[in-house]
């Protein structure tokens, strides 16, 4: 490992955490309605918007109303994006004269962007017009991230409030997410990216003449603006198919660093928001610590596997057997590892290398990050929701083992909370197993789409569903997902993955808000200590391992063992 590698691996988490803490505090103020330095600027815009939309800022919603509004909002979003893609051929800002998108791809894409997944079964620059990219994708990149933030803010209120029937106003939460958090950060990031040479233009593709005398058509477009929110909102849908491996999306080491920083920022900040709103900052730090431990442990394992190289390559004389297939030479191994680890843990899904070509054993980490439900920082908002669900499961067991009916932060965890948190944790896992099982056993799942056979093929299929059910959106590549079968099954995975997290979470929020808060006594287990963090991490690992042990064995582990004997796929 070079000095640069070490710097990246040490500085990145440090700098991100250092930025995440103040951002977390800031968001806590925003969503508590306190005055912030942006208030003078944004408040007038907010007021006009509320008046236009007929929203009463002071109105509080029950969880049912909150959830219902959220679902309607997303259904409209999916419908609008779907129609936009079908109609793009007749609409302006289409210099490449791209026609209507195929219906199943359009549906898949609409669901994908609204659910903050940004799974792309198409090649962006060759399928979507500028209008679709800007009005459709970029807008949903903001809205889907805002929905995630709104949902988690409502859940936090569930813990904060006592005997309350309401959990906030979704329209206010969405508006504030966009105007106080996402838009300012996206503007900063866009400018930083443009300064490094990321393109931002509305003109059509450029034709270049190469030294050999042939012609090369270079796609360009409004890249930087989409790139910024792609990371900030943990969306991950690239303007180009090659995503952040594309030199016009991610041209320099600085942009690479900025992009990783951007995709980690809000997910890392939210635990601090949680702590600040609870007025229990140690609690926020404890949740953050659990996430960080899992992140660093995965990163360490992942990096050591990749640095260990491929024995087959070593045999044919590659230095240290380092596997550069699928990685950008300008990124090198460590930046690819760092990006891949960050993007799979945060459910962002942007990539700067092809995960398909990593050493097989690395696949275990990437899959684990996604299959446990994207809770290691996780997607904007939903990551913390998932982590809190695991915390509830943990405290259910811990509570029993200290002889108290279980509670978390003074809220009793009863039948309703258990049912809902189990739905959040397990339904994506169940769906992902079921869909992968179907895919590997029917023609449409294998023959038509799969480029690789054997355990690697299984990993590819499993990764596709893990990525969509986890609302990650990154692809393992090697799988042609642009078929009706995969478009529809991954759509289902994305919908369930998203709404089986958000709706039960809002239900929990409603139920918790209505409860009394039991004051802590010496008989209360402190959820801010090391023991809690260790137990939480343990529960996550055990749940993930028990559910996916067979698939991991037959996929990446078997492939790795076969690789050691010289067999590749």
């Amino acid at each position, binding site marked *: 490992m070079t000095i640069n590698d070490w710097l990246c691996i040490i500085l990145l988490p440090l700098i991100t955490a250092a930025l995440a803490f103040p951002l977390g505090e800031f968001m806590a103020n925003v969503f508590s309605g306190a005055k912030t330095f942006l208030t003078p600027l944004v408040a007038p815009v907010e007021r006009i918007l509320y008046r236009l939309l007929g929203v009463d800022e002071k109105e509080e919603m029950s969880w049912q109303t909150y959830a219902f509004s959220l679902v309607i909002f997303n259904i409209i979003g999916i419908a609008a994006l779907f129609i936009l893609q079908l109609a793009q051929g007749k609409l302006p800002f289409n210099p490449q004269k791209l026609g209507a998108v195929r219906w199943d791809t359009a549906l898949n894409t609409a669901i994908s962007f609204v659910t903050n997944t940004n799974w792309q079964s198409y090649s962006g620059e060759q399928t979507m017009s500028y209008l679709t990219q800007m009005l459709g994708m970029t807008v949903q990149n903001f809205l889907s991230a805002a929905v995630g933030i709104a949902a988690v803010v409502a859940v936090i209120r569930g813990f904060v409030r*006592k005997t309350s029937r309401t959990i906030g106003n979704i329209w206010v939460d969405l508006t504030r997410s966009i105007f106080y958090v996402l838009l300012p950060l996206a503007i900063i990031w866009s400018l930083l990216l443009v300064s490094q040479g990321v393109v931002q233009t509305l003109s059509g593709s450029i034709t270049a003449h190469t030294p050999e005398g042939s012609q090369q058509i270079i796609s360009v477009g409004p890249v930087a603006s989409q790139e910024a929110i792609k990371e900030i909102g943990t969306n991950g849908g690239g303007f180009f198919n090659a995503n952040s491996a594309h030199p016009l999306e991610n041209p320099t080491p600085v942009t690479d660093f900025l992009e990783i920083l951007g995709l980690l920022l809000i997910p890392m900040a939210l635990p601090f928001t949680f702590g600040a709103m609870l007025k229990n900052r140690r609690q926020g730090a404890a949740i953050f610590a659990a996430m960080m431990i899992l992140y660093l442990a995965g990163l360490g394992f992942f990096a050591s596997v990749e640095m260990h190289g491929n024995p087959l390559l070593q045999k044919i004389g590659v230095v240290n057997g380092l596997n550069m297939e699928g990685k950008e030479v300008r990124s090198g191994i460590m930046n690819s590892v760092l990006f891949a680890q960050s993007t799979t843990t945060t459910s962002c899904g942007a990539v700067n290398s092809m995960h398909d070509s990593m050493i097989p054993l690395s696949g275990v980490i990437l899959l684990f990050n996604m299959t446990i439900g994207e809770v290691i920082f996780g997607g904007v908002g939903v990551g913390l929701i998932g982590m809190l669900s695991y915390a509830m*499961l943990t405290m*259910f*067991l*811990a*509570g*029993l*083992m*200290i*002889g*108290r*009916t*279980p509670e978390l932060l*003074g809220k009793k*965890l*009863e*039948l309703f909370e*258990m*049912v809902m948190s*189990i739905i959040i944790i*397990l339904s994506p*896992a*169940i769906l992902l*197993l*079921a869909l*992968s*099982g*179907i895919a*590997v*056993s029917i023609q449409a799942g*294998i023959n038509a789409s799969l480029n690789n056979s054997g*355990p690697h*093929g*299984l990993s590819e299929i499993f990764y596709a569903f893990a990525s969509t059910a986890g609302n990650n959106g990154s692809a393992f590549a090697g799988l042609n997902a642009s078929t009706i079968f995969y478009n529809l099954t991954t759509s289902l995975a994305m919908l369930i993955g998203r709404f089986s997290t958000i709706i039960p979470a809002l239900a929990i929020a409603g139920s918790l808000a209505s409860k*009394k808060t*039991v*004051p802590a*006594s*010496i*008989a*209360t*287990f*402190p959820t801010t*200590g090391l*023991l809690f963090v260790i*137990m939480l991490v*343990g529960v996550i690992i*055990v749940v993930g391992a*028990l*559910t996916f*042990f*067979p*698939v991991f*064995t*037959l996929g990446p*582990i*078997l492939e790795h*063992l*076969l690789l050691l*004997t010289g067999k590749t796929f």
Partner: protein
Amino acid sequence: MKATKINIWQARFIIPALKDSLKKLNPMLMARNPVMFVVELVTFITTLIVFSDIITGNSFLFNLQISLWLWFTIIFANFSEALAEGQGRAQADSLKKNRSESMARRLLYGGGSEVISALKLKKEDIILLEDGDTIPGDGEVTEGTALIDESAITGESAPVIRESGGDRSGVTGGTMVLSGKIKVRITANPGESFLDQMINMVESAKRQKTPNEKALNILLIALTIVFVVVVVTFKYFADYASVRVALSVLIALLVCLMPTTIGGLLPAIGIAGMDRLLRYNFIAMSGRAVEASGDVDVVLMDKTGTITLGNRMATEFIPADNASDKELINAALLSSLADDTPEGRSIVVLAKEKMGIHGSDIRAPEGASFCPFSAEARMSGIDCGDRTIRKGSLEAIREFVAARGSQISDSVQNIVNDISREGSTPLLVAQNEKVLGAIRLKDILKEGISGRIGKLRQMGIKSVMITGDNPLTAATIAAEAGVDDFVAEAKPSTKLDLIRSYQSKGHLVAMIGDGTNDAPALAQADVAVAMNAGTQAAREAANIVDLDSNPTKLLDIVEIGKQILITRGALTTFSVANDVAKYFAIVPAIFIAQYPQLKVLDIMHLASPGSAVLSAVIFNAIIIPLLIPLALRGVRYKPSGVSALLRRNLLIYGLGGLVLPFIGIKLIDTIISMLRMV
């Protein structure tokens, strides 16, 4: 007084329990326990596979063994439940031995009476009881006073007084009238008495699941669903990898992964908790109350009867300036000779001690007449000859001497003030117009009470003492007993208000009471313990009745409540942690023929794929009977820091659950490969 613990490991319990566990195989009964129901379903399928193997002439020995061990798994689980039920029944039987045989004399409307079987008594019937009668059912004394032997229920040999009207009017079926004649209104239909209710709670078929049990069940069902999906999709993933997995092996994997250990033992844990309550002579009206008792963080206690012995005791004689010690003691003794109140008796005892006389050679002089304590006079005493001796409160004596033209001197007033300031109660003694001095009456703490209160504090439970005394007296007792807080000059409504205010702050409140005026507070409290000797109203408002009428036993309830929860949590953790080893046994075994590279996962180095699968199944089955004693006894609970407690349980049941099956499966594998079972 504890009822004797019943040793369950005797043939007379085990054999019926074994029979019961076969009866419980009935799928209709099994459906109450979803986890074990699924196990039964898939076990049935393996049995069909065995039969089809036999018919088609395939080798069936392996499948037969898998199938048999799966049946054992279910039977072991049923056995644990049946055993716990048997224990509960035996415990209850020992309490109600006498009741069914007795006869009762029922009073008829419009006069007259008839003798009928106790079993035919209905609610609201009035029965007449005399010396030697066994009380046929729970009821309330409506007329008369009687001395009752409650030893059949409580094991306490000293008889107790039960009388109409007061706070001591409740009687329990199975106890006996030693002397006296009382009319008792029956308050429960046959089969509805407290004891019958309790018996219902140890019979699984009638048992209501408690809220926490329901929540845990949901978790277990969810795990079951996940593992069903894992195993079903596993088949297709294996197919994809060109490995055919036998159905029986898939079923074996499923059962091993499912939380059968906790799923099988869960009913037994709940029932055994009820058994333990019975053993401590508690009758719980609902399992919910027992669970909640583990959460209680505030407990309200009456001072009198709970913290202090019911009555004050004389501890000191303080003569006035113009009187001698001897004069005072003599007068106090005389005035108390016929005083049957506990205070009076304590004065006699103290006086005899001070005067150095023992035995009962002190008699009132001839011709003396006693003046018993009355609510109007608020004094008691004796008239003999020209001496009129009275003892009473400051106000009462002031009136008494004023009527004789005298008044309370400053020195006496000072003595009274001093005694009050120290939290005791002064009792003045006057002879004719002269005040001789004061007797100090002091509340005496129950033995060991401060230790128990200290233990409550260790458990994180705040104790609050409630008393009608003045703040000074209350503070003294509170400090002596070591309670965390007290409320003095409490009115009957104070308790209810106090409970509500604690509850509104999120606390769970336990309350111990016996009087009718406690009933509203008992009904409001989260855990309400009524003394069996208390009034019917109190008992009905409570959710736990203490047959011993011993208020300090709250600690035992809290411990039992916590134990039930800890046992559930520990075995759930254990059950889930076990799965890791089972994966490492079964998954490599399935693939090793096709992919010898997966041998690295076979970290136990098991003899053969067949023995690996069978060992995992056997381990999964026999761990259940091995854990039955723990499920019945409950995981030990020691009041200590919660973090220490959790760390300990995580180490034993989490880490232990992770490691133990690796050893167990390897051991079984060694044995069965030696026996050539596979």
